[in-house]
């Protein structure tokens, strides 16, 4: 790293390594921490990030990855082996950014040391030849050398230069904040990486569906899916509770965007722990709820038909608001009911349509997402639901491997089509199914990320540092005053000034002009005044 501010290539010229292990290590380290390597790794990082935007990613949408395996059975396993479906967790992607950050540390630490030293020391002595500098001026004035130097010192000091006097010379430097900002920027990027890592290791995130009127307790079993970092104890999640009191949903009723969602709003009552003081709040799409160190986000909504199944004697076997997952913009939703209390287990495979429309010969479809004409279509199965196998099962999928479809007297499979309030009898004396009413449910995502605040703090620090690094001019100015005798014999002073800067700086000439104007209250003879 050159200490000259004007030298923009802040790397030492490559040196041939001495033989031997120490020399080799030093050589590799120097290469790794060079600007050229940093640039190469940056470009590599950009290129490596691209495949993840083209191929479906498990972390973003696992369903699409499964679909990709089905449509590309030949290539998908190979892509998978190369990490193509987990690009941002792949070995090669991690290797690139880890190397980049090793390079960054190796680059920034020595620079920090150097910068701290520079901030404590005087500006370097003036060079012998000013003409070599990017900007330089020479004028002759009436004042004595001492007066000139004193005036120059005052001007430079008022322009926030640190000034060093050396006989008939001054050297001055300003803009240490530029380098400080640059270092802060790079270190903040490191902080950002650590904050993201902390979030992955110590954070967790769960998705859960809660019907209106139901309660959710924050335990790992209550979630439909839970992703926790390796250092999280999932049996000790914060014990808060949430009641979903209301869910208001609005859709565009008319116009070209009819049916588009317009507003979702969940009204909830939360408690930090069972029995603790409760608090009512509203959760909206862009307004999460903070409770007990976790954030609760409203991400989705749908319909939960309240379905009751009774046996032939009228005993209730099942009665619950059953969330159905919506499949399209018109909320055509699918869901299942699993009834285990009966002698033969019953499964109901269902299709819920908030605004049903029939087209002959085909399945009914939904034509609007709101509840204008709700209908529930159910296909009953009997047999073994497969719940005793010990395998975890999704509550949205019916495993029909060991079940049969129920058949009516005509031998055709039974299909029930019901409106709210309807009750239908199941054949074979199995009992009845009632579609009581429809509730809405909210899809909540609950998240705890201890790195979040640090990530934001690092990002802000990086932006501040970047601003300083790009916009604070770092300049050195040199002044030399030399007595001469003018043609008429009176004593005069030749003032030589020069300036140089770090990075691109178009203000050097102006800086010298300003300085000279201050040294020369009225216009005097110009010896030479060409911008270099």
């Amino acid at each position, binding site marked *: 790293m050159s200490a000259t501010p004007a030298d923009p290539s802040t790397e030492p010229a490559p040196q041939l390594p001495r033989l031997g292990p120490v020399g080799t290590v030093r050589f590799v380290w120097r290469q790794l921490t060079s600007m050229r390597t940093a640039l190469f790794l*940056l470009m590599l990082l950009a290129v490596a990030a*691209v495949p993840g935007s083209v191929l479906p990613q498990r972390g973003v949408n696992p369903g699409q990855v499964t679909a990709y395996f089905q449509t590309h059975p030949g290539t998908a396993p190979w892509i998978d082996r190369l990490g193509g479906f987990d*690009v941002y967790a792949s070995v090669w992607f991690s290797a690139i950014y880890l190397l980049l950050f090793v390079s960054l540390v190796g680059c920034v630490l020595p620079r920090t040391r150097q910068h701290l030293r520079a901030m404590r020391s005087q500006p370097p002595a003036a060079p012998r030849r000013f003409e070599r500098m990017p900007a330089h001026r020479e004028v002759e004035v009436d004042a004595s050398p001492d007066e000139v130097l004193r005036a120059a010192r005052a001007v430079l000091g008022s322009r926030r230069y640190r000034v060093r006097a050396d006989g008939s010379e001054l050297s001055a430097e300003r803009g240490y904040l530029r380098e400080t900002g640059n270092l802060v920027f790079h270190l903040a990027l490191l902080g950002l990486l650590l904050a993201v890592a902390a979030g992955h290791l110590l954070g967790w995130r769960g998705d859960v569906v809660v019907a209106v009127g139901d309660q959710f307790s924050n335990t790992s079993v209550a979630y439909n899916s839970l992703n926790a970092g390796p250092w999280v104890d999932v049996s000790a999640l914060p014990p808060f509770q949430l009641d979903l009191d209301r869910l208001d949903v609005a859709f565009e009723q008319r*116009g070209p965007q009819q049916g588009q969602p317009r507003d979702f709003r969940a009204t909830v009552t939360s408690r930090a722990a069972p029995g603790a003081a409760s608090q009512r709040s509203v959760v909206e799409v862009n*307004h999460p709820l903070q409770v007990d160190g976790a954030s609760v986000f409203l991400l989705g909504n749908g319909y939960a038909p309240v379905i009751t199944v009774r046996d032939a004697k009228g005993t209730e076997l099942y009665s619950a608001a059953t969330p159905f997952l919506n499949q399209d913009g018109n909320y055509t939703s699918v869901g299942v009911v699993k009834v285990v209390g009966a002698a033969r287990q019953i499964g109901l495979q269902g299709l819920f349509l908030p605004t049903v429309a029939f087209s002959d010969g085909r399945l009914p479809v939904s034509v609007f997402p709101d509840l204008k004409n709700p209908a529930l279509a159910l296909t009953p199965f009997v047999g073994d639901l497969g719940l005793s196998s010990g395998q975890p099962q999704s509550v949205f999928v019916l495993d029909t491997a060991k079940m049969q479809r129920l058949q009516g007297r005509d031998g055709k499979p039974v299909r029930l089509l019901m409106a709210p309030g309807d009750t239908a009898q199941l054949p074979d004396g199995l009992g009845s199914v009632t579609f009581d009413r429809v509730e809405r449910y909210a899809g909540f995502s609950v998240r705890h990320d201890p790195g979040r605040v640090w990530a934001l703090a690092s990002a802000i620090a990086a932006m501040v540092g970047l601003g300083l690094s*790009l*916009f604070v001019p770092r300049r050195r100015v040199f002044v030399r005053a030399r007595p001469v005798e003018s043609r008429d014999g009176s004593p005069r002073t030749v003032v030589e000034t020069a300036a140089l800067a770090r990075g691109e700086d178009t203000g050097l000439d102006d800086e010298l002009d300003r300085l000279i104007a201050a040294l020369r209250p009225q216009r005097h003879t110009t010896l*030479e005044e060409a911008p270099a």
Partner: protein
Amino acid sequence: MSVNENLATTANYLLYGSMASYTVAFLGFTLDLAGGAARAERVALASAPQRELAAVGAQGPLRDDAPTAPPVVPPARRKAAGIGVSLTLLAVLLHVAAVAVRGVATQRPPWGNMYEFATAGSAVVALVFVATLRWRDLRYLGTFVIGPVLLMLGLAVTVLYTRAGQLVPSLKSVWLAIHVSVAFISSALFTIAFSLTVLYLVQERRERSGAAKRSFMDALPRARELDLASYRLHAVAFPLWTFTLVAGAIWAENAWGRYWGWDPKEVWTFVIWVVYAGYLHARATRGWQGRKAATLALAGYGCILFNFLVVNIFFVGFHSYAGVS
């Protein structure tokens, strides 16, 4: 919260008006450039006697190696450029009005789908250009700024057009307004910087080969100045893009519960950021200054275009709100 259809139609007419005005301005700037070659010739002829005059006027010896001042272009001669500027001003007025009226018609910030991104974004490009004209004579850039603006508007009204409507809930956020408007300003600066970079590369090539052929490029500043100007714009655009990235992450955190999820749109915002970081780095890396660094700037702008035109439409993700069918 319904849409005022009359106002929405008015907005469309205002936009057509601005396009017409831009077109004439574009022609004006192009004519000016075409006339630039002839002008440069006049300047070359005129500068010889000027130098002698200067030597007489100066009191000290005039050093031969002192660089001559950049050629002074006679100001009164650029009528076509003047027309370009006036009509650009008119066009920008109409354009901004069109965007504002669309906002009033829909009662929300008018950048909720790709059509609105393109119209509002190009308005910012033109505004930034007009604003810089106040303190720098960048009229030679007119063709290269108004051209892309016209292209963007043409694309908007033909391919991307979406009727005025309301937003899906995840787009209702103050962060939308902040994130998107800063992204616009940043992209606008990147656009102008891109034009300058292209001009730099052409000019640099001509200077290197000592091109004797007269062309409109003679009317432009020298390669070194074009390069510096492009760097300065990049240096302003990059922090703004950084802010866009951070504001987008904050918005994503509020809306979806994660500040970063490697959604295609996020991936490309990141890629753009890294490429431009590479450009700034390259300018400080030995052996990479000049043309090589400029190539990275071009690559960065290629990513911006790809992000807007390809990712928005073809890559589905959380951000699939292009509104184009």
